């Protein structure tokens, strides 16, 4: 050892270091969450307590949420987002599950090339896809429908979900399936009866994650939808931001309803997502 510190001194130094470590991480997290906390607190701000008065509300009420929940257009936007996001999640889960199973259980020549091909779609700018597919969507009659949103979002989330599901499949020993085949089960039966139940929690988490990403998406939602009654929640909020006479408290309440429920789900699923994403990144 080069340093001339005694074990005791090292121990003290370590303790001081840890103390500052905890403080700084705690502070960073707090600073990072400030805007979100600000949004949540101000969602309860009474409309008669204007924002000029101060950062934090002095009068609290639930009026904003009542207003949002009784606003037909906003509620329809929530419903539309729900339809698009859940269809997109289902679509990606099916396609992604098949592909991930194929990648994890078969060794074939173009395997890594195809993996790279699928990853490359993450490089494609969304605006390019919108520009290219806008006319196509018009020609085949799906412009101003949810279909392009479901497929495009599903596709862009495919690489992520294949990563995540691939690691889930690989965590299940093939022997489990082989045992079932010995008993005469076909591949499909072994997948549906043995594998899928085992990874069901992971699948649900992946689905929820894709739901969240699609829910948050804006570009496709504004590019492929024109009718106001088909607006998604992101486009509805964006349209309100641009307005001259913005009802700030109402807007914040809408933004909060559009994000906080998902954040709560996210806290529960992030453990699954994190390990899958990280493993994927290490491989890629």
């Amino acid at each position, binding site marked *: 050892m080069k340093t001339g510190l005694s074990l005791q001194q090292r121990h003290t130094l370590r303790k001081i270091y840890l103390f500052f470590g905890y403080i700084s991480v705690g502070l960073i997290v707090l600073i990072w969450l400030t805007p*979100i906390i*600000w949004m949540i607190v101000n969602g309860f701000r009474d409309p008669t307590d204007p924002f000029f008065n101060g950062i934090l509300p002095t009068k609290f009420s639930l009026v904003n949420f009542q207003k949002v929940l009784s606003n037909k257009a906003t509620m329809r936007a929530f419903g539309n987002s729900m339809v698009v996001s859940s269809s997109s999640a289902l679509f990606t889960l099916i396609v992604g599950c098949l592909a991930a199973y194929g990648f994890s259980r078969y060794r074939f020549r173009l395997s890594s090339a195809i993996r790279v091909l699928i990853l490359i*779609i993450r490089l494609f700018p969304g605006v*390019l*896809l919108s520009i290219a597919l806008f006319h196509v969507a018009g020609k085949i009659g799906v412009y101003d429908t949810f279909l392009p949103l479901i497929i495009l979002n599903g596709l862009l989330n495919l690489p992520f979900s294949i990563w995540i599901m691939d690691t889930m499949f690989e965590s299940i020993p093939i022997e489990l399936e082989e045992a079932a085949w010995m008993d005469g089960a076909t591949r499909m039966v072994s997948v549906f009866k043995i594998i899928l139940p085992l990874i069901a929690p992971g699948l649900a988490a992946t689905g929820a994650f894709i739901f969240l990403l699609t829910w948050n998406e804006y*570009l496709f939602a504004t590019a492929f939808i024109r009718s106001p009654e088909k607006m998604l929640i992101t486009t509805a909020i964006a349209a309100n*931001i641009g307005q001259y006479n913005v009802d700030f408290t109402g*807007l914040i309440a809408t933004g909060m309803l559009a994000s906080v429920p998902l954040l709560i789900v*996210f806290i529960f699923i992030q453990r699954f997502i*994190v390990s899958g994403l990280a493993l994927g990144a290490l491989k890629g």
Partner: protein
Amino acid sequence: MSTNHSDMQINNLSKLRRGLLNLRHKINPVIIFIGPAVILVILISIYPTIRVLYLSTLEYSKKTFEYSFVGLQNYIALFKNPIFSKILKQTWDFSLYSTAGHIGLGFILALIMNSGLNRRFVSASRALILLPWAVSPIVIAMIAQIWSHPLISPIGHVLKFFNSSIEFMPLGMPGQAMTALIIINIWQFTPFYLLMILSALQGIDPELYEAAKVDGATGLKQTRYITLPLIRNVLLTLTMFDFVTTAAYFDLIWVTTQGGPVRSTDVLATFIYRAGFLTQDWARAAAASVLLLIFVFIVAAIIQIIMRRGE
């Protein structure tokens, strides 16, 4: 000779047959599993690229209402346009500073979190700090608009409290808007990169650090000689992914400033969107998209080369 030859033929035939059998046994299920994903990828990414390439060589006539082939005219027009070079510069800046912020800050935070703090504390903070990332950029844009409002911004309130005469409305100032957007972007997406880097750090064998300690390497030296080389490829992969994503970033910028004020936050993505969906100049939008794609692939290729060279 001839028997030998036919033997070889038979041999080849049986090889072929075995190959075909193998094909039926091995490839068929694979096609069922991987096929849908591959078809989708081709249909919805490669086909649009070809379409955009084609569209970018056309010109729409307002007299005949028809498209005609003009070769590289759209590209030449873009490069002659002084605003377009400003937009390229701004796209580069946005992408560069955001990426540097995400990866740099993410790395530092990950190092702090990985320096022996309680595991439960670390995973709880990681989950919490990740929350802004899970909020829609549109909701973030809404918060940003209010935070940049000259009369009601919380930051403005704080400045007023300290009797500052600074008028705080960064998104409305040509000289500040870009910086503000970069900071917002760094704030929202750094946690994601922090998370990825942290996972890579947690995957490093602790014995390596023990060995280094015996050799007298501590603190920064460990970071420099053990941590960095080990997670170099992860960092590079993340950098590539990040650069590409931020170069095409749209949502937050469009909803907060639409490229303004006075085009000071206009980037390729907003330019393309405006050219296409607002001014209906699809050929120009297509040409700019092709340039964006080329840029993205050049960046990806350069980083791939750097990665290969280091191995």
